[in-house]
């Protein structure tokens, strides 16, 4: 479902996407706070494991119909090269600068673009930061890591990490009401 035609050979386009991404400004050194924060014009965050809240601001007056393009980028490292799992277009009114997107997938990663259509072509105005939806279940993955952080008497620390391929609870049971009884 690679439906969006991101032309990865157009360097300017890629750079402009980076400019609006949440990661770009982290690479910027010695810039003023104002300059850094100016990139945060299309913001999204996860309110809970299934819902996003997003809001935006752009300078140019725009009277057309605005759309949010929601990209699923779970396990995608190269979104800027045009890779993603799927996307969905959501019509938003031009009068509001905020929107909630409900019923999404737990633990997934998303990035949003705000734009409009000329014919069938989506024209991007802004791109949001990346967002990861929270988990809401106990993981079934029992391959775990144990880390050791030792403090000496001068409170200097030393770290060791050990991987354990599997562990199991010994007859694990939820505490019963009886075990939580009163005196």
């Amino acid at each position, binding site marked *: 479902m690679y439906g969006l035609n991101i032309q990865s050979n157009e360097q300017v386009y890629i750079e402009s996407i980076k400019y609006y991404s*949440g990661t770009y400004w*982290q690479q910027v050194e010695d810039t003023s*706070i*104002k300059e*850094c*924060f100016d990139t*945060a*014009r299309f*913001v*999204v*965050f*996860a*309110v*809970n*494991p299934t819902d996003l*809240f997003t*809001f935006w*601001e752009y300078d140019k007056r725009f009277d057309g119909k605005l759309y949010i393009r929601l990209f699923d980028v779970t396990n995608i490292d190269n979104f800027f090269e045009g890779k993603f799992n799927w996307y969905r277009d959501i019509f938003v009114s031009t009068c509001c*600068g*905020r929107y909630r997107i409900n019923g999404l997938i737990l633990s997934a990663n998303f990035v949003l673009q705000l734009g409009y259509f000329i014919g069938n072509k989506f024209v991007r105005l802004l791109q949001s*930061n990346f967002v*990861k939806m*929270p*988990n*809401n*279940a*106990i*993981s*079934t*993955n*029992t*391959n*775990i*890591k*144990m*880390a*050791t*952080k*030792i*403090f000496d008497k001068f409170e200097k620390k030393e*770290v060791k*990490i050990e991987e354990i391929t599997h*562990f199991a*609870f*010994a*007859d*694990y049971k939820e*505490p019963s009401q009886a*075990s*939580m*009884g*009163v*005196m």
Partner: protein
Amino acid sequence: MSGYINLVLHAHLPFVRHPEFEDFLEEDWFYEACLETYMPLLAMFERLYNDHIPFKLTVSITPTLAAMMKDGYLMGKLERRIYKLKELIGKEKKRKINTPFYESILMYEKWIQTNQEVLEKYDFDLTKGFKRFYKSGQLELITCNATHGFLPFMQALPKLVEAQIKVGVGSFEQTFGFKPSGIWLAECGYYRGVEEVLAKNNIEYFFGETHSIMYADEMPKYGVYAPMYTPSLVACFARDPESSKQVWSAKEGYPGDFDYREFYRDIGFDEDYDYIKPYLHLDGQRRFVGLKYYRITSSLEDLSSKEPYNPAWAKNKITTHAANFLFNRQKQFEHLNSIMDRKPLINAMFDCELFGHWWWEGISFLEEIFKQAHKTKEFGVEFISAKEYLRKFPTNQMSNLCESSWGYKGYGDVWCEGSNEWIYIDLYLKLV
């Protein structure tokens, strides 16, 4: 069978200081919390210390609250409030002799006297009191992010998050004279990546909601009964839901007991207007003055049907509830010891102002827990701080934790709904 309890109280109030007004409603929050929670807590530490009863708990004091606790103007107003209350209690003592309220008035007389002594002892700077018990080893003090902002919603502005943590740590050091080893993230609001900022500021641990660990990327080997390291090796201590609910819940928990004091029935509303007027604000509006003579009585919400408070009955209930709390922890330990290869740790985390302010008997409840745990070794309870635990048990599971908060539904719903979402829009688009 035994285990550890890490008792954590989170103390926070927003910074409110209005010298341009004689009275200011929001300043009252601070005075009420001082008189009903912070100063009684310091008095409790003193009593336990003098009685050689070992106690250990962690208190997080936010930068805004610490700034108010040492502010000369606010503490001067607090002293005036104490004098006014003493005057009112003196009048009440004469008026209500031979009434069912007299025992309550004697209780308030002792309470206000103790508060005055605490204020004078610490030279009108409550942070000195907390620092004293930190130095004597019974109290662990930690900080909080600077303005108590909900960090998961600030994550797209990393510089803002960095500033929240850096100022939180810096102002704590300025107040208490040492660097905090731990932090309370406002509302237990955690998101992946905040630990990197914590590590940069030499924070060793923070406190999270239950599912910050339970819904980590790998199954938690010890559940919430041991901390979990984040990839930055900052440890997360997650809330034990069982112990929390017993104390926290107004309906199912101890604070809702019928013998405990009713919060909402106050003589500021009950007494003749002309009599109580000198103790109200200049605007003359009726308000709480802090003297409440009724007990909860029943689950009915009708305040007029409440019966007089009996301090002796409430004291008996405190003894029973403290024993029940420890008994239930003992039962938890029995169960957890059967499935864990180390001593379990219960993180019992509460808002500090629950004790004393919302739940009048709450400070006495804490005191009774320490007394009974010391006296009855069978409970198998040992109180420990997060820092001490990490030195005893330096090996812990490491995983990516789950974004979470201790608000309703466990994520960010409370802090981003129709009425308050404008905050973030202003924060991102207008303020910066």
